[in-house]
């Protein structure tokens, strides 16, 4: 087996008294779709928030493609090719699709002291292309994200992550509050990542969703990894027993 794309070693995290991660160790293999499951408060979001730069670990090491890394903010994570998609936090509803695609990474025609003139034509063109690349069909990049359905929104978030050449895509409960049809669509996106060689970490409470698109299942409980098996070597029953 080739070198893991992300290695997490003995990760600890305390939130003023709450020991949310108790020495989590985990290897994520290149190209796999890893399903991360666990009960409420198990520490799944805490783990991925550390990987995506929203929080920092109190102890432990993160190794990306063989290099020990310090992920101090979301920009660091993105620079390492780690993109994260949340149910709620990924998009600004009152902004257009084109604007949302490039928040924080806007293409500019010229800039003075970090303030740059937006290349709006490029933003529109590239967002149309990026959306088409994930087989999403939207009328216009000028539509407000708030006008999209939940599934379309996740589609745009995934298109954004793909556009910025993410190597690892983390999806934290991307199917929450979605209709059955929309959920199927998001699961389709995750399956599509594999073909493109993108590693996925998929978090969900719904084991059926996880088993539908993941090669490997990692279960967490009370801040620890309690199960780590290939999807075809375990079952929904075994996993739910562990939680």
């Amino acid at each position, binding site marked *: 087996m080739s070198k893991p794309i992300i290695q997490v070693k003995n990760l600890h995290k305390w939130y003023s008294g709450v020991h949310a991660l108790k020495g989590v160790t985990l290897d994520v293999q290149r190209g796999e779709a890893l399903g991360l499951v666990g009960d409420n408060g198990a520490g799944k979001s805490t783990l991925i928030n550390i990987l995506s730069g929203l929080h920092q670990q109190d102890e432990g090491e993160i190794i990306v493609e063989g290099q020990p890394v310090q992920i101090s903010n979301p920009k660091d994570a993105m620079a390492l090719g780690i993109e994260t998609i949340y149910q709620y936090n990924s998009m600004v*509803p*009152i902004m257009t699709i084109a*604007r949302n695609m490039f*928040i*924080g990474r806007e293409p500019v025609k010229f800039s003075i002291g970090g303030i740059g003139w*937006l290349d709006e034509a490029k933003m529109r063109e590239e967002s149309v292309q990026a959306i088409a690349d994930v087989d999403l069909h939207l009328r216009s990049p000028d539509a*407000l994200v*708030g006008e999209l359905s939940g599934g379309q929104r996740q589609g745009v978030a995934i298109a954004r992550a793909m556009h910025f050449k993410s190597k690892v895509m983390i999806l934290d409960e991307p199917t929450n509050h979605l209709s059955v049809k929309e959920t199927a669509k998001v699961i389709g996106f995750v399956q599509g990542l594999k073909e493109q060689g993108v590693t996925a970490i998929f978090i969900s409470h719904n084991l059926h969703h996880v088993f539908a698109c993941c090669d490997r299942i990692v279960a967490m409980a009370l801040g620890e990894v309690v199960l780590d098996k290939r999807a075809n070597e375990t079952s929904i029953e075994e996993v739910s027993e562990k939680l």
Partner: protein
Amino acid sequence: MRRLVKLALQKPELAGALLLLTLVIVFQIRSDGVFLSVNNLRGILGLLPETALVAVGVTLLMISGEFDLSVGSVFALMPMTMAVLVVGGWPFWAAMAVGLGVCIVIGFVNGIITIRYDIPSFITTLGMMFMARSLTVVVSGGFPPRIRPGEIPSRLFVGFIDDGNLIRASVLWFLGIAIIIGLLLGKTNFGNWVRATGGFLPAAKAMGIPTGRVKVVCFMISSVLAGFAGMIQSMRLNSFLPSTGEGMELQAVAAAVIGGTSLMGGVGSILGGVIGATLIRLIDNGMVLSQIDANWFRFAIGALTIFAVVGNAWLRKKGRAMKVSVDK
């Protein structure tokens, strides 16, 4: 109907612009043509840049998701600082730079305290409103500084620029600054960060936007514009009083809201703030001309503000209902 709702959502300043047009026509008729006469326009154009500059800064800040109630006090503190220094023998430009520096510091403090301690800017800037007003009185030493005409280059800021004595330089300053801030918000990456920060803070944070820094910069811009506007007014009247600009903070918020800026952040435009400020000035002036008791002025502005907020809330609700029907 749907298209109208959508248009109004995308161009929140549209309703204000229509109201503006209507009022101009009504006042023009009711005042028997005095309203759009050169003499009356001169009065309106003298005051407008001052209110509007404050409104522009406050609008930008509100779009980033914060408030500034200290702008009225800064409006007085900046010219007072400058005038006291000039009287004390400082060259004008140095005194002006110090005055603007004071504004920058106040904006910075407003922002840092709000962000660092995670408290509502409503409270931070309410405190700053009192502190800056108090400082103004202290700096003045109890006696308004007297500046002889010609001692400072007021002409550069408030002198008439045409032969008809209609348009002052302040109109150009205002237009230039409003255009720059409008472009900053609409056409630059910084503007994108401002809107994302105010529109949905968690998303902006997750995308690595330095939201705290973005807000602090907006606080500083708001403060500087308020101070600059105050300087223009003091120069126009050639009087430097500690009481200048009282109530300005609420007019600025009203202007922003009337122009379609959301109290929740994210939604709004600089043009909207300018339209709101213009509406306020027109109503003030038009009421006098139409011989309506001037005491109704604040009533009218208040009613209009409530009307604008209710209207915007209604629009957003309509907008949401629309989305649901799109889903099916």
